[in-house]
């Protein structure tokens, strides 16, 4: 009889453990939300030869040159910008109008890229990621230069795809 109760208590504890786990697994919350970055814009940093760590541009306005579509208008100064590459085209052209030390500038940034349509998950749906082939400015001043630091545009935070070194001097 004593052994029976000892067995009973031992097995009860084991059962209780599993019942708790079992009920918890039933009641646990499901994570039906999207964890992947879905906004896959190209990050462009601004610098000069003198100040390679970064410079700010004032009143930056970015327009899709092919469609004459305003993409961004920032009245504050900024040292980087995220530009959405064309999802269904392999060439994106951005006209960038801005001020630097009170002087207006207008530049056209051309990006050649390859796109990938991606089904991410049931929760996230689809997104477009890109791989940068070539970047150039078709009206660059002498001395402007561009560095492609990361050719994969996957929408991750702090991706730092392209860095433009302006020649304002």
């Amino acid at each position, binding site marked *: 009889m004593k052994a029976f109760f000892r067995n009973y208590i031992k097995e009860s504890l084991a059962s209780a453990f599993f019942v708790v786990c*079992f009920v918890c697994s039933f009641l646990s919350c499901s994570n039906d939300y999207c964890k992947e970055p879905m906004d896959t814009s190209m990050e462009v940093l601004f610098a000069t030869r003198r100040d390679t760590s970064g410079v700010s541009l004032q009143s930056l306005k970015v327009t*899709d040159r092919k469609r004459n579509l305003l993409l961004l208008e920032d009245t504050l100064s900024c040292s980087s910008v995220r530009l959405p590459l064309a999802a269904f085209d392999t060439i994106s052209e951005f006209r960038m109008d801005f001020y630097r030390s009170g002087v207006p500038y207008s530049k056209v940034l051309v990006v050649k890229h390859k796109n990938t349509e991606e089904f991410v998950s049931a*929760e996230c749906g689809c997104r477009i990621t890109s791989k940068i082939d070539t970047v150039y400015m078709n009206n660059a001043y002498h001395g402007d230069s561009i560095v492609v630091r990361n050719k994969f545009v996957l929408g991750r935070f702090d991706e730092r795809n392209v860095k433009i070194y302006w020649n304002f001097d």
Partner: protein
Amino acid sequence: MKEMSRYIGILISAVLWLLPFSDIYAAKGDKKDSRKGVDTTSFYYTEPKSVYGFYVDVDLVDPLRSVFSSNRSGFNVSAGLDINHTFMPAVEVGFADIDASEDYSYAVVEVPQSHVYRVSGTYFKVGADFNLLNKKPYRTISPMGYLGFRYVISPYKYEVKDYVVVDAFRGDGKRFSAEGDVLAQWGEVVAGLKTPVFRYLCVGLELHYKTFLHCQKKESFVDDARRIVKQSYAPGFGDFNDGVWGFRYTISYFFHL
């Protein structure tokens, strides 16, 4: 659905609480492993041997889910060989059909009502369990509290239909549909209890921790555009995001050899 799940949980919990009163404990002479005190007239009596028999288990969770949810159906059966009441090599096979499109609730873009993400296929598991409870060599069948592992492979079909890829800044969009076959593999750590309730009829509960998931990405070219389909579900695994823990509630029969 969640309410229903809760009731099922409570019901099964209640059954589990009754396990200690099961048939095996009612038998006389099972307190000692030594020959002395063994009831040789017991239904469960046997001479010690290396292979006692094998279990065939049927999982009740998947069929129950199928009853309460139209989005998924499936079944799962397994077999395990009882060696010395200690070591149990096991194989498992299952099928699942999951319509995961209902989970599309936090999408960045609107999608047509007709959108579908469905996975369907079989999965195969091989592995072994190790019984941690007292072994009773003079019994044909012994309650088991075990730890084990599984290697799982699942070849399955997927269908993605009428999702939308958009260029939100320019207002462009097009529909995205794809289907094909992929292969998923993963490992599982298993912990479980199994006990006879009447003769060789047993009930059991297993918890699975799934890990080392690897699933193929499917790549193709459609109209010169590169296209990748990542999977977020697999039969036997469920949702990759929150399917890490799984469980089986089994009814099994022990075939004594």
